[in-house]
C-alpha cells in the first residue's frame, strides 16, 4: 500500500462519508444551528439528515437538543469537543493525503 492510500485509509470513516462531512464542516464554523438550517445547506432529505445526525451522535461528535421555539419544535445541533478535534484531525489527514498525491 503506498503512502497516499495509507493516509486515506487512516481517515475517520464516520466523518469521511460525504453527507456527514458536509454536516460536520458546517457545524465546525458555528456554535450551534438547527435542523432546518442543515437541511437547507446540505440539500439532504429529512430522513438522510436524521440518520447521519444519529450516526454522528452515536460517535459522540454532535450533541442534539430538542426544544420548542414558541409552539414550534426545534432541534438544535452542535459539535462536541471531540467532534471538533475529530474534524481538525480529518482535515489534517486529507491535506496530508493531497500533499502525498502531489509529491513525485
Amino acid at each position, binding site marked *: 500500500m503506498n503512502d497516499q492510500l495509507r493516509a486515506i485509509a487512516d481517515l475517520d470513516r464516520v466523518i469521511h462519508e460525504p453527507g456527514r462531512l458536509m454536516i460536520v464542516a458546517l457545524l465546525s*464554523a*458555528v*456554535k450551534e444551528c*438547527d435542523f432546518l438550517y442543515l*437541511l437547507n*445547506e446540505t440539500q439532504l432529505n429529512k430522513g438522510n439528515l436524521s440518520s447521519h445526525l444519529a450516526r454522528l451522535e452515536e460517535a459522540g461528535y454532535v450533541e442534539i437538543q430538542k426544544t420548542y421555539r414558541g409552539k414550534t419544535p*426545534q432541534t438544535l445541533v452542535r459539535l462536541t469537543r471531540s467532534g471538533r478535534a475529530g474534524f481538525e484531525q480529518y482535515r489534517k489527514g486529507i*491535506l496530508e493525503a493531497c500533499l502525498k498525491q502531489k509529491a513525485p
Partner: protein
Amino acid sequence: MKNDSPPSSADILQYTLRPHQYINVDGSGEIGWGLMCACFGISSYVTLLAPSPTVWWHGVQWLFFVCGALGPLLAPKIIKRLLTFPRTGYVAYQNGKAFWLTMGASAVIAAVTSVWVSRHVTSAMRRATVARPASVAPAVGVTPGQVIALIVLICLTAGVFVIYFVGRARQKGRRAGGAAESPPSVAAVLMKWGQELGALQFWLCGGKLQRRTTTSVKILILFYGIILLLAAPILGLIYLSELVAHPGAASFTRMEILALFVPCNAILYLMMAASGLKEHAWKLPWCGLLVFGSLAVGVFLPANFIGASRPLMLFLGMVWLGSGLATLFSYLRRAPGPRAAEASLA
C-alpha cells in the same frame, strides 16, 4: 461535495465558509446600518427645522436619535427572528477569544476617534460662533503644502500595501505553476479582497476562521489598508473641489471627516455584500453610488461640515436601506415561508 469523488480541502473549506454567507443573506445588516444613518440624519434635521424649541420637538428628536442608536443592534435581530430563522433555519455564531479581543480593540479605537473628532467639532463650532465669514479665511489654518504632504503620505502607504498584496498573489501563482507568468487580473485581486472582507465580517461576528483562509492580523491590515487606499484619492479630490468651490476657505476638518467617512462606509458595505456578490451583482455599482453620491453631497453643498453631515447621513441611510430592503425582498422571494413550505409538501 459529490458522492463519487473524495473531498478536497477546497470542498471542505467551501462548506466551512457557508455560515458566513448566511449572516447577511437577508440584508438585515444593511437595513440596521441604514436605519442608523437615516435616523441620525432625520434627528439632526428635526433640530434644524423645528418651528420652536419645545419639549415635544426635543422628544421627536430624541426618538429618532434612540432609533438610530438601537437600529443596528435590534433591526437585524428582529428580522432574523421573524423572517430568516423560520424560513431557512437558526444559526448561533461562536463568541471566542478573537471576538472579545476585536470588540475591546474596536472600543479603544472608537473612544480615541470620538475624542479626536469631538475636539475638531468643538473647535470648528467655536470658530463658527466667532462670526467669521466662511469665504474669507481658511476654517483651519491648513496650508496646501500640509495637505499635499498628507496625501503623498497616504498614497505611499497605500502603494506599499498594494505592492505587497499583488506581489504575494504573484508569488503564490508562481508556486502553484500554471499561470505564473501573467500577473493576476484586477478583477481577480478585487474578488480575493472581497472574499477576505467577507471573512473579516464573519470573524467579527464570532465565526471561527480556518487557518487556510486567512489570518486575523492580515485581514485587519487589509481592512485599514483599503480605507487608506480609498482615503488618499478622496482627500485629493475633495481638496481640489474645495479649492474650486470655496477658494480660500478649505476646511481641513470637513475634508478629513469626508475622506475617512466615505471609505469606511464603502468598506462596510463591501464587507456585508461580499458574500452575496454572485447573486446580487448590482451591489457593486450600488457601492459606487454610495461613494460618489456621498462625495457629491459632502463636497458640493455650501455648508460647514456640520451642515453637510445632515444630508450626507440621510443620503447614506437611504442608500443602505435601499440595498438592504432589495436584498430582503429577493431573499423572501427565494425562501418560501414555513406555511408555504408545509402547503407545498401537503
